[in-house]
C-alpha cells in the first residue's frame, strides 16, 4: 500500500483541476496584457480566476495579487510594509514558529525583530503581543496555522491589537487557506499570503491579499501586470487552476473539516496508545484538521521516515538530519522540547483524499517500525534496562 501523508509539504494536483487548466495552456494562451482577441480571452480567464479567489476569501477582486507562491507573498508583504512605514521605524513583531519564508526575510533585512514565544501547545499570547508593540513598530506578522504542528493562532484578536496601536498586520496563511475558514474581512488582516499547491492546485502559484487602500510598494520592478504592483506575465493557467482548487476546497468546508479531524484524531490517538514514550506535538485543540505531529523518544526522525517510506508511507520530520542543519526544527524547540525529543519528531499530514483504510495501515506499520528501530537504539537499551 502507498500512503501519501505529507500533504503539508505539498498536495497532489487534483486531476479534475488539471484537466480544466489544460485548455488555458493551449486555447486561451494569449498574454492577458495583449490587445488582440487571444489576449482578451486570457484576460477574462485571469479575471475569472481573480474573482473566484477573492470570493473564496471574502475579499474584493482588486485585493488579490497573484504571485509565484507563498514565499514571494511573504517576502513582498514584509519588505513592502517595512518600506512603506520606514519613516516610522524598523521594528517588526513575529512569532518564534514562523516559516523560513518569514523568518529569513526578517533576518536578512535591516530590522529590529521581536519574536513572540509560544506556549507548549504552540500558541502565541495576545498579552505578549500587546507588550511587544512599540512606538517604532511597523508590522506584526504571525502565521495563521503552523506548518509543522498545525496550531491555529487567534489571528482576529492579534490583528485587533495591532490595529488599535496603528500597526499593520500580515498573516502567512499558507497552511490555513483551503483547510479552515479564512475570511479576510472577519480576520481584519491587512495582508494575507497563500499558496496553491497546499490545496491541490499546482506548484508555482500563490497570492497576496492586500487590503484595499493599502498601497504596498513593489518587491520587483517591471511591467504593468497586477496593476503594476507585481510585474511579470501572469501565470494564467496556474492562477485559474488555483482559483478552481480553492473554490472546491471551501465548498462544504465544515463537513470536510469534521471528517478529516476524526481521521486525524484516530491516527494520533492510535499512535499514542500503541507506542510507549511518544509525545504529542500537535495541539489537541485549535489544530489543523489533517495535522499529526509526535515525537518518538529514543529515536531519530530520519530513520523513522526512511523506514516508513520502505513501507510505502510518505511523512516528514523536524529532526536536524532532515532539516539540513545541525539543529532540529525551530518550531519544536520553541515548544520547549529538548533537542533529543525534537530529533524524534514525525509529521503525518492528511488531506481529504486520505482514507480510513490508509490510517489503519499507518497504525499497523508505525508501532512495528518503532519497535524495530528501538531495538537498535543504545538509548532505548538504557530505558529497557532501567525498567528491568
Amino acid at each position, binding site marked *: 500500500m502507498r500512503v501519501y501523508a505529507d500533504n503539508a509539504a505539498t498536495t497532489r494536483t487534483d486531476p479534475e483541476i488539471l484537466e480544466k487548466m489544460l485548455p488555458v495552456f493551449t486555447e486561451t494562451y494569449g498574454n492577458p496584457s495583449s490587445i488582440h482577441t487571444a489576449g482578451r480571452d486570457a484576460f477574462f480567464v485571469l479575471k475569472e480566476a481573480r474573482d473566484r479567489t477573492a470570493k473564496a476569501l471574502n475579499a474584493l477582486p482588486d485585493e488579490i495579487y497573484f504571485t509565484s507562491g507563498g514565499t514571494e507573498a511573504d517576502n513582498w508583504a514584509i519588505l513592502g510594509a517595512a518600506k512603506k512605514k520606514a519613516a516610522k521605524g524598523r521594528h517588526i513583531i513575529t512569532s518564534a514558529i514562523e516559516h523560513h519564508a518569514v523568518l529569513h526575510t526578517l533576518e536578512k533585512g535591516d530590522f529590529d525583530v521581536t519574536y513572540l514565544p509560544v506556549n507548549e501547545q504552540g500558541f502565541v499570547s495576545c498579552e505578549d503581543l500587546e507588550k511587544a508593540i512599540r512606538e517604532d513598530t511597523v508590522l506584526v506578522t504571525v502565521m495563521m496555522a503552523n506548518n509543522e504542528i498545525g496550531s491555529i493562532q487567534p489571528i482576529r484578536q492579534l490583528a485587533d491589537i495591532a490595529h488599535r496601536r496603528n500597526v499593520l498586520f500580515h498573516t502567512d496563511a499558507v497552511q490555513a487557506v483551503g483547510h479552515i475558514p479564512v475570511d479576510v474581512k472577519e480576520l481584519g488582516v491587512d495582508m494575507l499570503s497563500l499558496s496553491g499547491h497546499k490545496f491541490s492546485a499546482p506548484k508555482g502559484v500563490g497570492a497576496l491579499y492586500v487590503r484595499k487602500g493599502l498601497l504596498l510598494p513593489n518587491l520587483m520592478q517591471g511591467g504593468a501586470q497586477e496593476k503594476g504592483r507585481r510585474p511579470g506575465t501572469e501565470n494564467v493557467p496556474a492562477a485559474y487552476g488555483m482559483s478552481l482548487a480553492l473554490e472546491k476546497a471551501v465548498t462544504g468546508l465544515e463537513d470536510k473539516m469534521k471528517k478529516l479531524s476524526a481521521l486525524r484524531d484516530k491516527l494520533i490517538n492510535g499512535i499514542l496508545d500503541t507506542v510507549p514514550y511518544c509525545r504529542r506535538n500537535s495541539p489537541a485543540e485549535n489544530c489543523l484538521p489533517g495535522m499529526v505531529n509526535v515525537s518518538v523518544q*529514543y*529515536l*531519530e*526522525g*530520519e*530513520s523513522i521516515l*526512511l*523506514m516508513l517510506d*520502505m513501507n510505502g508511507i510518505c511523512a516528514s520530520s523536524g*529532526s*536536524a*538530519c532532515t532539516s*539540513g542543519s*545541525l539543529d*532540529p526544527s525551530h518550531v519544536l524547540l520553541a515548544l520547549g522540547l*529538548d*533537542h*533529543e525529543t525534537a*530529533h524524534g519528531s514525525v509529521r503525518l499530514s492528511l488531506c481529504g483524499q486520505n482514507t480510513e483504510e490508509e490510517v489503519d495501515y499507518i497504525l499497523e506499520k508505525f508501532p512495528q517500525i518503532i519497535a524495530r528501530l528501538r*531495538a*537498535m*537504539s*543504545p*538509548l*532505548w*537499551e538504557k530505558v529497557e534496562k532501567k525498567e528491568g
Partner: protein
Amino acid sequence: MIYSEKVMDHFANPRNVGEIPDANGVGEVGNAKCGDIMKMYLKIEDNVIQDIKFKTFGCGAAIATSSMATELIKGKSVEEAMQLTNKAVVEALDGLPAVKLHCSVLAEEAVHAALSDYYRRQGLDPAMFGLKNSCDGCCSGCGCEAEEAHS
C-alpha cells in the same frame, strides 16, 4: 538528498546489530542532543576481532555507516582495525551525501573508542598505539579534528 543503494541496504538490513555480553572492548560516541550515538562492542581473541556488534541512535546514514564499519573490521587484526578511516566507510557505501559525512566520522570514532577501551582493559595506554581520546562526535564546537572533518 539521495542515499546510494548500498546505504539503503545497510540501513534496511543492518549487519551485526546487537550487544556482546562478554565483550572486551566497548566504545560509545556521539550524544543525543546532536541526534546520533553509536555504541560498538568488540570481542577480541588472539589479537583478532572475532565478533563485533553495534547499537545506533541516529539517522539512516548513522545506522548504515555503523553497519558498514562493523563489516569492514570483523575478522581483522586489531592493528588492521585501527587503520579504519571514515573515508573507507564512505567508499564502501558508494558515497554519502555531504551533510552526512559526519556519520562516517562517528563510525570511525566508535571503532577507535572500542579499541581504546580494549587496550585500557589490558592495562595499556591507548595513546601508545596511536589512539586518541575520541571526541563525542558532536558538531557543536569542540574544535577537534573530527569536527573539522564534519565541515
